[in-house]
């Protein structure tokens, strides 16, 4: 049931809407083919990012792919929580660990998902930031990959999506934009700094290729 809802929302509605009305183009999407589990890392500038990525997921596994969202932003009300869970298939994680009374480790939440064979979409920058500008990656992605070294990490570069729905606006407008999938990242060492560096470089490499 959840799979069907997700397929209707993303594979049918969002994919066509984004392609025809917004003008989104998908590149190198075949990387995802035949992959059952992966960690997708992407740059983040707009709420449309998640829609774009989810719409490009293979419909066979779409119910097993969870975008990771910050609980303090998206889990504000019960309604929002249900919406995020069933419409976006998102997993909410607490962003500020110091604030929460319960001792939930966000890395552990994601790790558990991966151990169950699920895939996750994560924005290592942490927040949407300044439009069109990439900021440094947070450390979370490093811990996550360090704990799950066997899972494939796929970098994604989203180009121009911040123009269709900038931060702080709520009008979606058509702009030609692109979503480009990179190849699976090979990590030479699983040192925390190296992981973050390699991941960052992978996205910057796609960025430099398309510009």
């Amino acid at each position, binding site marked *: 049931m959840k799979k069907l809802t997700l397929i209707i929302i993303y594979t049918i509605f969002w994919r066509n809407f984004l392609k025809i009305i917004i*003008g989104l183009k998908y590149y190198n999407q075949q990387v995802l083919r035949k992959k059952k589990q992966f960690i997708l890392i992407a740059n983040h500038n707009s709420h449309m990012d998640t829609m774009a990525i989810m719409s490009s997921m293979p419909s066979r596994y779409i119910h097993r792919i969870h975008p990771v969202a910050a609980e303090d932003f998206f889990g504000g009300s019960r309604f929002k929580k249900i919406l995020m869970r069933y419409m976006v298939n998102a997993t909410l994680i607490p962003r500020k660990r110091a604030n929460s009374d319960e001792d939930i480790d966000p890395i552990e939440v994601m790790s558990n998902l991966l151990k169950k064979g699920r895939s996750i979409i994560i924005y290592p920058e942490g927040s949407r930031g300044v439009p069109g500008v990439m900021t440094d990656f947070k450390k979370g992605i490093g811990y996550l990959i360090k704990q799950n070294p066997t899972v494939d990490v796929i970098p994604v570069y989203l180009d*121009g999506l911040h*123009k269709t729905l*900038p931060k702080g*606006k709520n*009008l979606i*407008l*058509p*702009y*030609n*934009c692109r979503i480009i999938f990179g190849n699976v990242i090979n990590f030479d060492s699983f040192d925390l700094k190296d992981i973050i560096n390699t991941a960052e470089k992978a996205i910057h490499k796609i960025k430099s290729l398309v510009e």
Partner: protein
Amino acid sequence: MEKIISSIDLNSQIQWVIAIILSILVIATTTFWIWNKLKPSQLVDEMTLRTKSWWGMCFIFLFASTVNPIITYIGLAFLSFFTLREVYTLLKLRDSDRSTLLICYLSIPIQYYFAYQGWYTMFLIFIPVFMFVIIPFLLVLSGDTKDIIRSMCILPTSLMLGVFGISHLALLISFPEMNEGNISGKALLLFLIFITEANDIMQFVFGKIFGRHKILPKVSPNKTWEGFIGGVISTTIIGYFMGFLTPLNSWQLILISLCIAVLGFMGDAIISAVKRDFGVKDMGDSIPGHGGFLDRIDSLSTTSSPFFHLIYFMVIV
């Protein structure tokens, strides 16, 4: 009875054009294939890619223009929409222009609705008169006056280029007087697009073969006097022989083809200059080998409205 005969007659004319278009495509494809086998080069590769795209464009266009008029309107409206989207992607507009942009996009269905209904006056004044006032006022309402004059000028111009010009193609098939007796709007539409695109190709071919003296050295190095003159002459000849689609007599045909050729060149040059200003080679990458939508229909956006009014003066008035 007479009506039935005339409609069959018209259909056979359109069938002729379709046959001509397909045979040109087949000849071009085989020529480039053989050329590529004999002497491969970058130019041939580009030509092969362009021909491939021509196949796609011709099929979509012939499907949209012959099957059902409703599909023609929707297809043309989408063409306008894609063109506008392409321009707005390249333009660095201010964040406060966003709500006005929505109105610009919404003017497309309205304009095509007027075309569909054949409301001639509304159709003519909607963009140049109404939108010309509404857009600047909406920009003023957004309250951001920094660089407002740029947006005030760009947005109505983009509508004139992308929507007003192209929508005349739709008006051709809905305008009542254009679909009476021995005149068929569909045939006129085919004639206009065939001549405009033939002009593009002929100017390109003559420029590539004989091009020496640059006509606009600072704007577009590919445009030469030889290409322009060769293109105009050959387009006029082609237009003369394609005249069976129109109710015009020979001197009218020559005049109208000449106008299309010159106006097509102007449209091409205008968009070239715009691209220069943007600092891009093509407006997009939607049509492989050609660039964006506006790269292909740049000449159509300037030829269609004069063509409509020339036909109007020559035939109807």
